[in-house]
């Protein structure tokens, strides 16, 4: 399926998602702040902090959301001081939810969400 700019949850730069990105499909995990998942738990860095830039992070990656294909990795990350007390959630994605690209760690994916993604479908992982 070819996405148009209108499909994405946020404005993406030209050439984003990259060609290597594939349609989202499968079960993924994420750490969130809220006890009940809300849309604010799924904001990209650029949506959350429009003026903030990090060295060595491309504009396209800054507009993606981090998720993992492996729940253990999320639990590992929760040991880091900036991520303590976060809640692990499970997200079942289908191609209409956006595109994914493996980035950095082998189990870490950058996810470009479409407007179709429904936060109500996210479940707390126990």
């Amino acid at each position, binding site marked *: 399926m070819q996405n148009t700019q209108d499909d994405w949850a946020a404005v993406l730069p030209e050439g984003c998602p990259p060609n290597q990105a594939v349609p989202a499909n499968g079960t993924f995990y994420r750490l969130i702040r809220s006890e009940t998942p809300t849309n604010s738990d799924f904001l990209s*860095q650029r949506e959350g902090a429009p003026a903030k830039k990090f*060295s*060595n992070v491309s504009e396209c990656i800054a507009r993606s959301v*981090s998720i993992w294909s492996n729940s253990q990795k999320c639990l*590992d*990350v929760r*040991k*880091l001081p900036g991520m303590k007390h976060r809640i692990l959630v499970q997200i079942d994605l289908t191609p209409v939810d956006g595109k994914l690209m493996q980035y950095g760690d082998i189990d*870490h994916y950058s996810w470009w969400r479409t407007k179709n993604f429904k936060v109500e479908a996210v479940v707390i992982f126990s």
Partner: protein
Amino acid sequence: MRITLHIQHHIVYYDVPQLSLARDDVGTNYLCLLVSEIDWQCKYVAVQTSAQRLAALLIDEVDLRSFFKEPELHTWFEFEDMSEEIQARVSEFDMIPDEYLPDSGFKFEGWVAEDRSMLEHVTRLNNAVVQLSISDRSKDHGIDARALGDILKNYQSVLENSLRKIVNTHNKDKSTEVLVPNNYTIRAFAATPGSLNIHMYSTSDQNIFGESIMELGLKKFDEIISDSNNNETLTVALRTVKGHAVSSLKRILDTVLREDLTLIHRWCTPKDFVISTKVIDNPLASNIMKLLQETSDLGIEQRTFIGHFEKIDVINKTWRIFDINEKKKFRGIASADQLSGLTAKTKNYVVECDEVLTEHTVSEKEDVTYVLQSVKEIGKS
């Protein structure tokens, strides 16, 4: 006190960089940890680290918590903006607050799976380690064996000839000592799937120029495959290894384009344990190839001899010269016009040649042919 840090790469990324490796202006390594993030306002703590301790951390011999709790220099730095040039200040605390520390037991295994194996090899072999990952469209973790042979042979040739150029340009008086096979050859020691990953290591000396000889070649390889938008910069880089190294690079690019390959070039040395990664894909190969076609002289190796001709054969269009610098004889070819009027044995000349490598189809041995381009008698204006 403030220091300027430059991010090298992010080890753990989660919406924002969580754990990153940085260097200061004199090349010292720092590990930067996100210690708090409220409404996207981030605060990082950085500690200076030796390459050995960093490697020990990444292979889980040192715990991340103790790495930050007990840094080698008992000094912590803080910064909020992870910009291109980070201005980090010395922390005021005598001991890092507990809430800034990670829980015990953070394991890097998995996070740096590929890096970990490379770091282990660097530690074990105490020399530069290279990983060349090669993939084609088949996605079966394999490639055509002939293409693999071409890539490896020409990759070795780029390294060897780049080193020859660098040493002959900057340290010619040391060339005999430095340009020995163990310094310019690499040995393959393993292959793993993923793409097809060929693992290699260098046996080069490590005490010349403060870094290993092979590191110079590996850096040069990265430089001449840079994804530069500025072709002028790339041409300058290519010109520094003009000749055989560029010809070999051209053959690699030819194979990449012909077989539709993607190459990932990764290497690391015990000097700093930082892994460098460069990718050659089809668009990059096309761009460099186009540049090489527009600048065809880049593939020509030039050679200058100074000495007297021992033999000048105008009929067979051949010559032999004794080079007074290398104290060796060299043979070559020329046109009859170029050779006529030259005097053998009694006069010294400066002879400019193109050095052409010819490979025998069956034995694959290379022959060098010197093609005379210009000749000037010494002392004659």
